[in-house]
Each structure stands twice: as structure tokens, then as C-alpha cells.
């Protein structure tokens, strides 16, 4: 009997060749799965929602902790794409963005999330925007050509702008044809209605109604190329900054209505900026650090013995700064001393949050906790959501 059973088993195994994909559901439509290891997988951003910590990352994971990062629960998320950034306007209202142009929102402090925008919608918006840019460029060129005294230089410039605009339209249309591909890289809410989200290839969206509708504002940015927009920061007096590829620094002093490009101290990519009372710290490729005390008008390089790219940081009330980046790099900067630490395992750290004991870091190996001296302390754990 057993023999027969075994035989049947083998025959079944060899005949039933199961095939994946027929029931493939787009990650944008696939809810995030709960996982007992979610706190050890890639996490890319962490923020404070009142007393609560909320972290986002790969596979649509959103985790929250109500005990300073010791234990974590997994939130209900309708997508399973990689999430790159999270921002809360208050303890209850928060937004997360990520790959495939996803924007998610929560109204209960991060327990349940719903979709507000995805890359397919975003792509259409980008086509619209690039077409508008194209017609503006065409009009500009036409008006230049109509003027009697031909300014060759201006003409040439206008032609380049037109060409760029034409490429932009082509790119946008291509994106539509292959589905959403571009990630949003950062999100910032100024209050529970007004928020900004930026991403790859100059993608920028804003809302004035808490995300009920999003509209692009790429066309309002003074961009010569469609660079990646890596990070959004709100500094003293509400001044806004966007930093990105090729030393890009944009700023707005009117809550994002208008943007100006600042002169950059650096040609390479910029990944983040932190701000304390009167000081801005700018993080670039391969550990390049710059600081400014005049709202970005002038920058001074801060030379440290570090070649690892830094992504994020925190400015503490006492004036000290903590910066994190690739290869497990944690840099503790205060007025007296600079301490550069490489965490064991040398796994990249993407962001951090301050807690009583020290800091909660998120990155390639999920959540890590360090004390104020930068030493790893007991690992975080995950508990089932109630």
C-alpha cells in the first residue's frame, strides 16, 4: 500500500508541472504579507508619529513601535512595492512613498494605510506636464524667432530647451508604455493638508488636500535636466530644500510655490540635508559633507576621514549631529569631537530616529539599535499585530 502510495506520489509530482505567473498580481495590487522577519529586511526610512516610531521598506513593509523601538508590529498595507520614505504631519496623519510612484496615507497613526497615487497615474500626469513644457518651449522659441534682432545665443538655448522638452515627452510616453518604473524618493508634509513628494528623473508631486488629489510640480522646478530629486527638508523659518543629482540644491521660501536653484559646492550627488537652528548640513556622495550658516548661500566643506556615502542625519537639540550611511557608517558630530563608527556587518544604514536610549537605525538589515555612544544594543523584535 505504501509502495503504491509512494508511486502515485511520484507520478503526481512528475506530471503536475505547476506554472507561476498566470495569477500574477502586480505588486501595486498585492497587499504586503505579514512576516516574522519584517524587522530584519531592508527598511529605508523611519520617522516619529507622536510617541510612535514608524519605519517603511521592502515588500511594502510598514512597521510601528510604541516602546522606543524595542518591539515592532506590522501595519496593514495595500501594496508590496519597496517604500522609500515616510512623513507624518501629526500623530495620526502620515504618508509613505516608494517605488512605482506609490503614495500611501494613514489616518490612524500608521496602523492602516490606503493608496492615494501610483506610478500609472503619476506617469499620465508626467506626460501631461511634459507636453505642457514642450508647448511652452515651442512658444518661447517661436517668440524668439519672431523678434527682429536675432539673439543667436538665446535662440540656441531655447532650441536646447525645446529638445530637452521633446525628450521629456518621449520619456514620459515610454514610461507609460512599459508601466510605472520610477520611484518616489522622499515625502514631506508641512501640515495635514499640504505635502510634497519627490523622486527619480525630476518627478515631483504636491497636494493641498491631504492627498485626496496630487498634482505634479516638476514643471515649476528650475531644472536643466531631469535629475533624481533625492531628498526634501524643511529648515528654519519654514524654508524648503530639495537636493539631488549633480549637486542640485533647490530652495523655496514660500512653502513650495516657487523654487530657486542655489549655487552648489559640489558636482556629485547630494542625498540629504539636515537643519538645526541656524545650520544646514549637506550630505553628498562618498562622504562629502558641507555646512552653511546663511541659509545655503555659502557652503563650507567639512572634511572627515570617511569615504562612505551618507544618506540621512539628525540634528539634536544640544547642537550635536548624527549622520548615517553606507557600510554601517554612523558619524557622531558634536562641538568637541567627531566619532566615526562602522557597525559590525558593515550593512548600509538609510535613516535614523532618536529615542531615549539612543537611536533606532534602519537600513539593509532592517532595524538596529545603538546607544548614544554608537554601540549596538539589544536587537529589536517583532510581535503580531493585535
Amino acid at each position, binding site marked *: 500500500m*505504501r*509502495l503504491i*502510495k*509512494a508511486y502515485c*506520489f*511520484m507520478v503526481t*509530482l*512528475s506530471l503536475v*508541472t*505547476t*506554472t*507561476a*505567473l*498566470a*495569477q*500574477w498580481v502586480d*505588486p501595486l495590487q498585492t497587499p504586503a*504579507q505579514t*512576516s*516574522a*522577519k519584517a524587522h530584519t*529586511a*531592508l527598511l*529605508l526610512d523611519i520617522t516619529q508619529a507622536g510617541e510612535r516610531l514608524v519605519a517603511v521598506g*521592502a*515588500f511594502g513593509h510598514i512597521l510601528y513601535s510604541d516602546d522606543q523601538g524595542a518591539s515592532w508590529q506590522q501595519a496593514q498595507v495595500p501594496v*508590496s*512595492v*519597496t517604500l*522609500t520614505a515616510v512623513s507624518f504631519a501629526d500623530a495620526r496623519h502620515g504618508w509613505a512613498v516608494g*517605488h*512605482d510612484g506609490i503614495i500611501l496615507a494613514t489616518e490612524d497613526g500608521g496602523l492602516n494605510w490606503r493608496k492615494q497615487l501610483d506610478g500609472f497615474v503619476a506617469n499620465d500626469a508626467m506626460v501631461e506636464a511634459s507636453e505642457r513644457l514642450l508647448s511652452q518651449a515651442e512658444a518661447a522659441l517661436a517668440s524668439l524667432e519672431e523678434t527682429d534682432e536675432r539673439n543667436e545665443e538665446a535662440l540656441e538655448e531655447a532650441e536646447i530647451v525645446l529638445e530637452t522638452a521633446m525628450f521629456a515627452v518621449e520619456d514620459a510616453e515610454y514610461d507609460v508604455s*512599459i*508601466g*510605472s*518604473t520610477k*520611484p518616489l*524618493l522622499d515625502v514631506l508634509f508641512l501640515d495635514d493638508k499640504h505635502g510634497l513628494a519627490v523622486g527619480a528623473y525630476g518627478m515631483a508631486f504636491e497636494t493641498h488636500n491631504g492627498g485626496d488629489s496630487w498634482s505634479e510640480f516638476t514643471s515649476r522646478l528650475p531644472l536643466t535636466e531631469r535629475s*533624481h530629486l*533625492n531628498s526634501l527638508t524643511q529648515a528654519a523659518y519654514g524654508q524648503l530644500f530639495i537636493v539631488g543629482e549633480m549637486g542640485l540644491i533647490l530652495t523655496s521660501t514660500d512653502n513650495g510655490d516657487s523654487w530657486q536653484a542655489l549655487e552648489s559646492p559640489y*558636482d*556629485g*550627488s547630494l*542625498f540629504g540635508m539636515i537643519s538645526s537652528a541656524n545650520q544646514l548640513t549637506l550630505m553628498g*556622495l*562618498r562622504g562629502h559633507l558641507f555646512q552653511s550658516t546663511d541659509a545655503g548661500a555659502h557652503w563650507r566643506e567639512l572634511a572627515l576621514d570617511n569615504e562612505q*556615502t551618507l*544618506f540621512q542625519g539628525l540634528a539634536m537639540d544640544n547642537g550635536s549631529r548624527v549622520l548615517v550611511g*553606507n*557600510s554601517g557608517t554612523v558619524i557622531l558630530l558634536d562641538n568637541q569631537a567627531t566619532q566615526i563608527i562602522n557597525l559590525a556587518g*558593515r550593512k*548600509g544604514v*538609510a535613516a535614523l530616529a532618536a529615542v531615549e536610549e539612543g537611536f533606532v537605525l534602519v*537600513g*539593509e538589515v532592517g532595524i538596529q539599535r545603538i546607544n548614544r555612544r554608537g554601540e549596538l544594543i539589544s536587537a529589536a523584535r517583532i510581535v503580531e499585530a493585535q
Partner: protein
Amino acid sequence: MTQKHHYSTEPEHFILSPETEPLLERVLFNNRSLVLMVLTLLTLVFAFGLTQIRLDSSIEKYIPLQHPYIQNYLVHKDDMKSGMANIKIAVAAVEGDIFDDAYLQTLSKINDDVFFVTGVDRSGMQSLWTPNTRWTEVTEEGFQGGPVIPANYDGSPASIEQVRQNILKSGQVGRLVANDFVSTVIDVPLLERDPETGEKLGYQALSHQLEERIRDHYQSDSIRIYITGTPKKLGDLLDGAVSIGYFFLAAMLMTAVLLYLYSRCPKGTLVPIAASLIAVVWQLGALALLGFSIDLYSVLVPFLVFAIGISHGVQLINGIAIHSGQGLDKMSSARQAFRGLYVPGMLALLSDAMGFLTLLFIDIGVIQELAIAASVGVAMIIVTNLVLVPIVMSYIGISPAGIAQAQKAEKANPVIWQWLGRFTDKRYAVTVLSLTVVLGAFGVYYSQDLEIGDLDKGAPELRADSRYNLDNDFMVASYSTSSDVMVVMAETPIEMCNTFKVMDVLDRFMWRMENVPGVQSALSLVTVSKLVTKAMNEGNLNWYALSRNQTILNTSIQRAPGGLLNADCSMAPVIIYLNDHKAETLQTVVDAVEAFKSEYDDQVDEMYFGMRADAIQDAIAEGKIDAVPMRLQLASGNAGIEAATNQVIADAQDTMLIFVYVVVFSLCLLTFRSLTAVACILLPLALTSILGQALMTWLGIGVKVATLPVIALGVGIGVDYGIYIYNRLEALLISGLSLKDAYLETLRSTGKAVSFTGVTLAIGVATWMLSPIKFQADMGILLTFMFLWNMLGALVLLPALASMLLNPEKIRERHQRVHQSVPPAV
């Protein structure tokens, strides 16, 4: 002497009709010289065969080739070759770390020497010193890179610091460079054939070359060498198999000493040993002539054949000595002994052979060849020992000392026999039987925890403290790798393995697997794609994800290692690293894979898998299929193969046991024509089988390729004792003795031989426990236990059962009915 009456002292046997028995005896003993000539000739032929024997190291024989997992693996075997036949040599600094000029120089020399070892695929070799180990870095200008050890390396502190920085940038920490920077690895892919001779690469020779030219040459107070990899393991195993020869010699010498102490007759010692050796020559020669080769399992068969041969030889010598002691001449005592023993002997040997043949039900090459080798060997013993021993003895006779010893034993009434005799008393019998039931129940209960598969870490074939496993422990501890790997093969149409949807499913599959208990991590094309996508975006962690843009996907896997996709991109393996290879872990992972498959279950026609990319796109456009077909196929990697083996073993385990018992039961019933007789013989065996399983549970030995045959071997060999003892006991009962007297008499003759054999056999197989090969040691432990316990069962349990089940009167009546004309015995 009247042939007609010869069977009067023996119970009825029906394997051969009563009339043929004297015929066989007559034919053999009346043509003794002719028989000897024929046997000598045969021995010469087989001895020639022996010179043709080969040691076989092919890996296919150890795995269940018909299992669907293995079939799937064989389909893709060539695509995954890289990584299978690899050797890793770790060079460790004893003090300090690798950032030391002396260390780096030694490493360079070792690197050069390895380069010239025969069979090394030089183009694929990788170490800190090979030019293919590079660092890359994203800078403001784009990618920058170079060899980890720069061309201008001069051993100065500055250039060592340069090496340190390059290593950190190379991403090799955990792969080529240990996590603690105390050792580095030389990764050595091997060619399948020797490029000069075109011959298949011999792993044993390779292993020796590595030991001599690398380990012995470079290991010192400051440098330690660790070598791992499947080819090295096989080399070590083959070395171990050769060392088995010494155990054979040891077993033979011990047997000779014991046999002499037992018989006190040099002739009676040498003849059974010579006959058993001839049996071994016949067995090996016959197999070689039949085209079989020796492997790590069948190398043990000569032990068994030798031991079983001795067992039967001793019975004959014992019989001859007893008859000589009664005053018969050489010829007559040899004939009497032959007459009395060849039927039970043949029955026992046939049971052995049939028991071994049940191993053919297990679809694993080595076990089947073991079955054939052991059956052939046992069949040979029928001729070499049952026939050759008495014929030779009929010429040379037992020495006077041997006869005196036999007479002494006949008269002696040692305490131990007295004690054993009590078990025929019903009061003692009840105690023994109750104890048996308790033991049996305990055994059944305890062996519920018996596990399938290999339970030890590292390479389970070798001992935990073997050099290979110690080297392996070092590798696992110092590098981010596990030695237990399950590979799931993702099949797609041609040129479709890197399409977004396929990669997305693989991504989810990997994450699902990483969440399965026992899984450490998973690696595939997807891992590479994400890493490269991140690198192309200046190392920004935010980009560690799959792109939907096919151009980006293509670029991201352009430089993926060959082992992660096949040449036409129709298969991408997912490599799952496990904590261990315990059966439970393997089954959990296999179940999780099946569960994932069932969620994506879809019956897409086989034909789509042979299609090219554009044909698939057309099929999707025409609505024939919804998406690119992909199927996940189990399994490869050592853990995948072991999972398949475990399934085969688990399915075969009970079947095989049932078949062994059915065969032995049938043969005994056919011979003795009495259910009570069969019960007396088989019940002690059943207890041994049960307790054997309990012992395995207790010792943490799983049911695996090595231990499954032991169950059949144990039953097959154990049945001898019962048959000899019961046969003699019944004959004496018929002759009119009471059960107790008959049993005491049996003990003095047959019982003595049985207890001697039990101990001798046990010692023979106990030498295996010293084998460097773990599974041979496991087999040794179990067989030793089974031989001893079977002997005890036959000496203690059998008389107790007989006192409850046998009715001497009935046996006599039956004998009268069948052989009315025959006068009652002695």
C-alpha cells in the same frame, strides 16, 4: 552405513526432498577430487576477476535517480556545474590578520601552486591575487575600479593599507575574505576531465595533490590551511574506503585467534578462514566479472561475507569435531556433519540472500548494488563453506587436540548453559516473555522519535571531528555561507528568465523562503539585479529594488555569475541556504516551496517552455496564455538531493521491513512446516528489529541510505541462529528428550557454535566503528548490536517461546506420521 535411514535423526525438511539429500551428499563425497578441482578452477577465474575490480566515485549512485527532484536536477545539471565542482582553500593567519606582507606573499605562492594542480580550471580561479578579484566604486566621475592587490604592490604599510581599502570596496568580505579578516579563500573551480589526458578527473588523486602540495607544504606555525568542497570530500571518502582494508585484516586476525581458542585445532581454524576468504574472492571476482564496481557501501560486503562464512564454517567444524569425538573417522565425521547441517545452513544462507535482495526495492544505486553484492556473496558461501569445508576436512581431519576439546565440551556442563537451560522452564519463560513484551513496547514507543535522514552537521558522510568537517566548520564560522544548500530551479521560455514578472515572482518566492524556519537566506539573479541597480544609482539604498524597465533589468544582470542563469536564460536557480540538513528542516522547506507553487498554480502547456521570447510575446498577445510562463522545479544542491533521498527512504522503510519478514517467514514455514517453529525463530528477530530502531533513536542515528540496509542485513543474518538452534532442538525432541534436556544438549553442540559465531561476527563488524567514514561507523554500531542481540534472542528467547508454544509429543507424532518406517532417533 545405510543411506536410507540417514534422516532418522533429523526432522522433516522439505527444501530438498528426502530422497535427494543422500544423492547430493553421495555426488559430492564420492567425487571429492573432482569437486576440489572444479572449485580450484573457479577460484582462479574469480581471482582473475578480482584484479579487474575498480573503486567507483560517481556521485549518481548515491542518489535516487528516479525521484522527480533528481530528474529535474539532471535536466539542468550542466547549467549549474559551476559551484558544484569547486574547491575552496582557506589560508588563515595564525596570529594577527591578513594585512601582513608575509601572509600576502605566502598566499601568492599558494595561489601559484594551486594554479598548477592538475584539473584546476585556471581561468575561473579566484583569490586576492587573481586579476578577476576587483574593487569597484562609484565616484563623481562614474565607476572606478581595479584589482584588489594593485600592480604596484610592494609590501609597504602604505600598500597594505591600499589592499585593505580595496578589499572593503570589493564586496568580498564574507566571500573571499573572512568576516574577521583572519583568512582568505582561494576559490578553485575544477574541470571535469584532465585537459592533457582527456580522462575523468580523479578526486582521490586531486585530494592527495592538495594535501601534499598545499597543506603539507604551506601549513606552519604562522599559516593554517583549510580545504573544503565536494571533490575534496569525495577524495577523503575514497581514502577512508581504502583504509577499510586494514579493518578487514584486523577482523580476520581476531577471528583466527578466537577460532583457535574455540577449536584448539589449527586445521579447524585455518580451513574455515581460508574457505571464507575464498568466498570473498568469489564474491568480489564475480561482481567484477559482472561489470560492477566497488563503492563506499559495497566495500563493506566482504566483511559480511567473511563473517557469515566463518559462522557457517564454525558450525561444520564443530559438527565434524563432535562426530570425530564420538569415534568416527575423518571421512565419516565430515559426511555426518555435512548431512546434519547443510539443509539448515542452506536455508539460513538463502534467507540471508533473499533478505538482502529486498534492498532492491530501494531506488538508490548504492543500496541496490549492495543488495546484489551481498546476495551474490552469501550464495557463494553455500559452495565455499557448506561444500568445500567438509570435503577438505574429510581429507585432513580434525587434530587430536581439537577432538579432545570437542569431547570436553560435550561432557562439560558449564554454569552458563545450566542458566540458559532454565528458560525452558515455564516459570522462567513467563518472566522472559513478559520482559520481552515490556522491552518491545518500550522500543516501539521510544522509536517513535526515530528520524529520517542525516542528523549531524557538516558533511554527514564523515565524522564530526574529521579533518574535512573541522575545515568545513571553520569555513561556516568565518564566512557568510552555509554548507547546506537547497536549489530551486526556475524554468522559463528561452530568453525570458530576466523579465520583470518572472523576477518579481522570484523576489517574492525568495522572501517567502527566507521566512521559513530553518532558512538563513536566499540568493538568485534577483539579488544581483537589485545590487547592481543600487550600484548604478551611486550605491543609494533606495534603489535596492527590481526595475520594471527591461533595459535596466538587462543591464543589471549583464555581469551576473554564470551559475545564476543558464546560457539561453531559460533557467535561473534560486539558492536557498539552510541552517542544517535535518529531515524536518528539509521537509519544511520543500513543503513551503510546494505551497508557494500551488498559489501560482497554472497548467501551461509544456511547449511554451521551449519557445523563444518573441513567440511567447505573440502567444500572450493572442491571448493563448496570460503571461510569461514560469515554473519552480525542486530540487538541487546537497539539501535538495538529500530531501529527495529522505522521501525515498521514508517510503521504502516499512515496505522493505515487511518484505524481509515475509521472505524469511515463507522460507522458514516452507522448511519447518510449522507456525510454532516460525514463531520461535522470528519473534526474537522482531524484538531485535524494534530495539535496533530504539537504539538508533537513542544514538541520534537517522534512517538513511547507510542505515536502512542494516535493518535487512540484521534480519537476514540473525535468522541463522534461530534456524540452527531450532533445527537441533527439534531433532533432539524427536529423539525423545525432554525440552530441557534437548535444549541443554543443543546448547552444548549448536549453541556453543552459535554463541561463538555471534561474538565473532559482532567483532568483525565492530571494527567498522573505527572507520573514518561516519556511515560505515553507524552501520558498524547497529550491526554489532543486532548480531549480539540476535544471538541473545536465539539463546534466551527461543527456549522460552519453545516452552510455551512447542508440544514435544505433537512433534514426535508428526514425525511418526511422516516417517513411519523410520525408527525413533538415537
